[in-house]
């Protein structure tokens, strides 16, 4: 009952977030002041005639007041119609769904790799000899401060151009996803490992760990069976950060590795001032964000039984 209520509230709040996102993006794009009709007709170079401009303006409803355009846009968005792309001249929803899979698989593999690596590294390095710790946290610091494109370029140089192990671009075949995944995951691994290790070290000091040891548990069992679950709580809290890094990273990584995907679509759409496309992608990101946060919220109660009563 309370759980149902909580989900309902979160969903309602999620709708609010989506609305705000769309509105902000809409306003921002109309503040730029460029004439979208010119964009639709292929830019200044195409030198469209006055009649063409008037025709297209009417066809896209751009002759109406901004408030009406906004209301129309909202109304259609609620019904799942994100409008026509100015540049590609196909519905935005179709363009997005064509590009969605490569990005989702990239984000998914990067999430798996980063969580797995971070947990493993934190478990291995927490409360170990000082030199292991300082080596590990030094490497983490360097990686987490390196911008994604630098990291990606380095990976390309090493594994594609020098060693020739992996392809440097493309979207087809599993080989093409390895380097982008690493470029996307490594900065996240670095941050997560630091947080998890700190958390594990705090937890390994607690009395119930001593009790567990006094029962005859091995170090591995203590870490995996008792400490890890506690350390996963801050990991959940950071999931918003992880998602934001993945999305932001995807834009850069897809461009760098010439991959298909939402990130690249976004970059191109922004460059072309393709307003419906940018709005559509923004909305999609917000939607995923809301869903991820809802799932995380529910996971808290699964991981930590003490959370159940709290709203």
């Amino acid at each position, binding site marked *: 009952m309370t759980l149902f209520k909580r989900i309902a509230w979160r969903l309602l709040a999620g709708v609010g977030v989506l609305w705000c996102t769309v509105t902000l993006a809409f306003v921002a794009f109309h503040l730029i002041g460029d004439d979208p009709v010119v964009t639709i007709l292929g830019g200044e170079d195409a030198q469209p005639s006055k009649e063409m401009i008037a025709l297209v303006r009417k066809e896209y409803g751009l002759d109406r007041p901004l408030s009406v355009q906004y209301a129309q846009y909202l109304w259609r968005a609620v019904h799942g119609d994100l409008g026509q792309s100015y540049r590609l001249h196909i519905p935005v929803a179709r363009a997005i769904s064509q590009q969605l899979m490569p990005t989702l698989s990239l984000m998914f593999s990067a999430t798996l790799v980063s969580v797995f690596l971070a947990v493993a590294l934190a478990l291995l390095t927490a409360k170990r000899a000082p030199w292991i710790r300082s080596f590990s946290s030094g490497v983490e610091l360097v990686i987490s401060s390196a911008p994604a494109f630098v990291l990606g370029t380095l990976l390309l140089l090493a594994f594609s151009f020098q060693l020739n192990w992996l392809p440097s671009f493309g979207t087809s075949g599993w080989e093409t996803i390895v380097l982008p995944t690493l470029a996307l995951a490594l900065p996240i691994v670095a941050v997560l490992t630091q947080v998890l290790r700190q958390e594990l070290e705090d937890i390994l000091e607690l*009395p*119930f760990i*001593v009790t567990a040891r006094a029962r005859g548990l091995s170090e591995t069992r203590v870490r995996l069976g008792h400490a890890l679950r506690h350390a996963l709580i801050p990991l959940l809290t950071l999931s918003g950060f992880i998602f934001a890094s993945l999305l932001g990273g995807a834009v850069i990584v897809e461009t760098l590795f010439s991959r298909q995907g939402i990130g690249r679509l976004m970059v191109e759409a922004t460059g072309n001032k393709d307003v419906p496309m940018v709005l559509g992608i923004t909305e999609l990101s917000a939607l995923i964000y809301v869903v991820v946060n809802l799932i995380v919220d529910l996971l808290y109660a699964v991981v930590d039984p003490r959370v159940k009563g709290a709203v």
Partner: protein
Amino acid sequence: MSTIVLKKDSQKLIGPEVACSRSPQLPPPLIEVENLSVRFGHRDRPVIGGISFTLRRGECLALVGESGSGKSVTSRTLVGLAGPRAEVTANRLRLDGEDLLSIREAAWRKIRGRRIGFVMQDALGSLDPLRTVGREVAEPLLIHGALNRAQREAKVIELLRSVGIPEPELRALQYPHQLSGGLRQRALIASAIACGPELLIADEPTTALDAAVQAQVLLLLESLRNANTAMLIISHDLAVVSRLADRVAVMHQGLIVEQGPIDEVLQNPQHVYTQSLLAAASYVHGGNRRWAPTTMNEVLSNKDEFVINADNVTKTFPNPDGKSRTVVERVSFVLRRKETLGIVGESGSGKTTLMRMILGLEKPDAGAVYLRGNSWTSLSSAAQRSERRRIQVIFQDPFSSFDPRYTVEHVIGEALGVIGISGRKERRQQTIELLRWVRLDASILPRRPIELSGGQRQRVAIARALAPRPEVLVCDEPVSALDVSVQAQILELLEDLKERLGLSCLFISHDLDIVHRISDRVMVMKDGVVVESGDVREIFARPRHEYTRLLLDAIPGLPAKTSRWSAQDSHAESTATKLEQSEGVLEVQL
């Protein structure tokens, strides 16, 4: 110092087979420790500086001493858990003839939990909060045993029942935070004895428990010892020790300063430190009240002097199974100016919830609390904020109520900020004044909580509570986590401050001795209901409710003190019998 007359009942309770083992043909001791030293890093002074003792099966040795004396380090060393930085040396450290000094970690793991059970001090923190109680208790069976899953589950239920946990099937599925302190402590013991260890080490097993639960846990430990388990009890509570131990070793600064049969040591302490420990114990447990309480009539004549007035407050919480549980039910009381009201009851009786409602941290479902005649609990939290300073609180564990990064100056300065004292110089001046009230000097201003002793922390907590010039001081078990000698000092300080500052005080405790000493009136709670209330001397001398009588009887006590309140003869054995009858759940089958 009061003379302590000992009536030792344990001889009677020990079974015949144990009595045999004390005949001249003794078997080799289970634990042999000779000249054990423990050192951390390269510090000059070792934490344990060469101690020796032995322990036989069916025998109980008590390690007594104040915190920091090395008791806990000693006990951890016996299970090889003194820590990675500890350097352990000894002429001899043996378990049943096996040398423990040279064994590897893998061999230790076969000993821990299987041959030596270890009960940690802090029962709340010692159970993994993310696991069910049943899973925690089953863990040693999983590690060491050859039982399958179904057998383990059956064994867990059996263990929980054997330590006196009612409804073991339900409790096994609950999480530690859903259990009261007493149940957690018993679950922890159940986990430690799951594999039937030869030695049970219990570090302050009853310190955080109230009298009735304490008596049950002691009874449980006694029955284990009678089942031929060797036992090492660590405690600063001489009353507990006198009830349970055959022999006692007094530790001071990492050394055993005195060791011998319990009767001899308590009756005829040789070492100065032992004498001072006993003196401190009798001060807390038997001291005279230092000021006369106002009589009921005097108090009643000043009706307008009500500071807090609770009217039929009720609080209900939802249970995990969807039903709800009434934790506080229709509780009413008044607290008058300059009066101390003691609230007594075992864990789970609703004391804490009641306190939270009085502090305005929890809203009652029905009824209301009035502060100086004005409604308090119905105010919005913004409106409460301006009144908050009038009620200040001191907790059992001040450490966790301090920000560890704050210095003492910062901690108290922040509280002064509440009443608008903002100038740096003025704050410092007032802080020093407050510290003088709690008898601390300005030299501790730059220290952080971790650098303070337990007593100093509680003093700082008191100074912080006094900073906003409160009218009511709520004390939640303010001394139960402290050593007995420090307890005495803090209680004396509280009494003195109350008198000087004209404070009203709500004193929540499970320690009846302390409540008796400090309160004017007392209110006894059980299962969320007030079963009895009235003048403290009246109630302690002539308890009307059966539960109050039970609580009074259950105090383990140094045997000499029973005559203090009444002529009741309530030594350990009669308590045990009564408890057994009243609870009907304490069947110990091991």
